């Protein structure tokens, strides 16, 4: 069992992520967001646990349901609101949107949409660290890549996991099996009994946890990350959980079967109950956290709203870093 401070930290992160997600959904409903908004509701425990277990110098490649992990690994609320509202001031400057945001210098990779594609990129950053001699044996910086049950079936993921295993790199694959890939239930997307059975075939350690149980997530993800840090090679952690929202805000998720719904609780409510029952947090403290989260989120929304949008007339339509290729020569 992790210590109380960490468990509270995770709870706080989860509250903040949920509050932020809810606010983004509302902004979307109010017509302020272009494209769809993607929510991590129900997945905050697993994602947040990973973010909490990371440290500066690590790498994180989140996907569309990782608001909690992003926040825990240092994303500012302003990065979120600015990006989702398409502000010039955000890390993507209106050029790319919502969930694609990243902040590479801080270790958060900006995702592309193609599922599976980011895993190899994380592997590349870890290989680079080894090559450059920037890793300390026994206490490695690690890389976490997120994927869903659906994304597990992409060729890109397969190739990347295998390469990580061959190089014995400190990659942790965080598999959120949320029972559906968009509308498609897992019986139509894979045929093994549990996705953790894939680990052995890569020569990776496999871990499994209840993704609705925040403490289990903290522990299991913590163990996996610790093993990777210690040099035990890549780790796969599969969590069983359910997304408690549509695929995006445009989706009512009416395809989610009733019996599936009945099998999964809300990790946030469950963690709240555990912490209060164990006397680690009381109702007032929790209410205060919620208030603070709302205040912070609202401030970030307001600030982003007040900031400039990108100006097409001022846009530099240039996709290359090098401006003068005609004269480019190696120094």
């Amino acid at each position, binding site marked *: 069992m992790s210590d109380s401070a960490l468990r509270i930290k995770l709870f706080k992160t989860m509250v903040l992520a949920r509050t932020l997600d809810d606010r983004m959904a509302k902004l979307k409903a109010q017509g302020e967001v272009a494209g769809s908004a993607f929510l991590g509701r129900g997945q905050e425990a697993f994602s947040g646990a990973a973010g909490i277990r990371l440290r500066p110098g690590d790498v994180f490649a989140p996907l569309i349901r990782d608001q909690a992990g992003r926040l825990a690994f240092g994303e500012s609320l302003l990065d979120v609101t600015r990006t989702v509202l398409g502000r010039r001031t955000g890390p993507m400057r*209106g050029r790319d949107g919502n969930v694609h945001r990243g902040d590479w210098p801080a270790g958060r990779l900006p995702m592309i*949409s193609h599922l599976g594609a980011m895993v190899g990129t994380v592997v590349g950053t870890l290989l680079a660290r080894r090559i450059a001699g920037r890793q300390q044996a026994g206490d490695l910086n690690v890389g976490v890549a997120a994927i869903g049950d659906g994304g597990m079936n992409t060729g890109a993921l397969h190739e990347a996991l295998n390469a990580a295993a061959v190089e014995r790199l400190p990659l942790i694959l965080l598999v959120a099996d949320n029972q559906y*890939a968009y*509308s498609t239930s897992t019986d139509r997307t894979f045929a093994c009994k549990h996705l953790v059975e894939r680990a052995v075939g890569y020569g990776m350690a496999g871990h499994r946890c209840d993704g609705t149980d925040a403490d289990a997530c903290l522990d299991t993800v913590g163990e996996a990350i610790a093993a990777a840090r210690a040099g035990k090679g890549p780790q796969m952690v599969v969590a069983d959980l359910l997304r408690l929202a549509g695929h995006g805000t445009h989706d009512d998720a*009416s395809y989610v079967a009733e019996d599936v719904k009945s099998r999964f609780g809300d990790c946030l409510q469950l963690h709240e109950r555990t912490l209060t029952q164990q006397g680690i947090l009381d109702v007032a403290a929790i209410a205060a956290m919620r208030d603070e989260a709302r205040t912070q989120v609202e401030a970030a929304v307001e600030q982003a709203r007040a900031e400039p949008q990108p100006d097409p007339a001022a846009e530099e339509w240039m*996709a290359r870093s090098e401006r003068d290729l005609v004269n480019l020569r190696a120094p």
Partner: protein
Amino acid sequence: MKYLEAIRLAQAELLAEDKRVFIYGQDIAGPFGGAFKATKGLSERFPERVLNSPISEDAMTAIAIGAAMDGLRPIVEFQFADFASVAFNQLVNHAGTIYYRTGLPCPIVARLPAGGTPGGGPFHCQMPEAWVSHHPGLVVVAPATVADAYFMLKDAVACRDPVVFIEHKYLYYHLEAEFDPRTAEHPGLGRAVVRRPGEDLTIVAWSGMVHHALAAAAELDANHGISAEVVDLRCVRPLDSETILASLSRTGRIIIASEGWPVGGPGAEVAALVAERGFTYLDAPPVRLAAQDTPIPFHPDLFAAHHPDDQAIVQAALDLAKF
């Protein structure tokens, strides 16, 4: 009928009329019926022939190839055209080479929901025709009208060669037209058509850009006394060079308007074609209009400025008329 409904209707009829037809793709089955609802209601009627696939674009295409070789007429729905990049090898190196190498047909249809919508961003807005139209063995079509969406999909399934069928997502719900599938006339799959006759210049376009071209032609006529002929390519590979050159021979001036990027693609091919084979018709240089040479931006204002619209075409036409 909307453009999307035409695609759904064509598929429903294809499934009903031809037991060889089956549809494979992500989220296409069940009441959900696809990310854009192009297959809504179909898996209920044809449960064995409308199948959800894993997120595996390479395998989806390989499976379609195998099924086609075994006698079926598979339609693969990609969730977004942008994700067909993952199936690139199967499309160009496998489907596209089977006939020349073996003499056997490979009748697959790959349906690619393409084109820009505000807020779609770099990975949900691409026009994929340049990816595939370089390659021998493939047919690449891009219907711009409701009737074409319907008829060309049927013709694509009838075609014994692999067809990349590019659908424009913006048109799905925004384009509506009346036509009677039973009586309407329609041109063959590979034919370009003159959507609006004109005398002073030719505007070549395809897919969503046809509508900008038509709007521009209307404005040029109404406000500038310029009579523009609009040629809708319909089929971007192979090009119907006769229709293009015939139009140019009447007008002497040509604008090629593309939603996609400025380097390469059908825009370059049409410009090269008219330079090579329509040189003596040209009273002025061919003009290409294309998107900005960057990934497609997320922000609606940047997005709107990223690709040519009616006004850009009007302006290009005014400049060209002065040449």
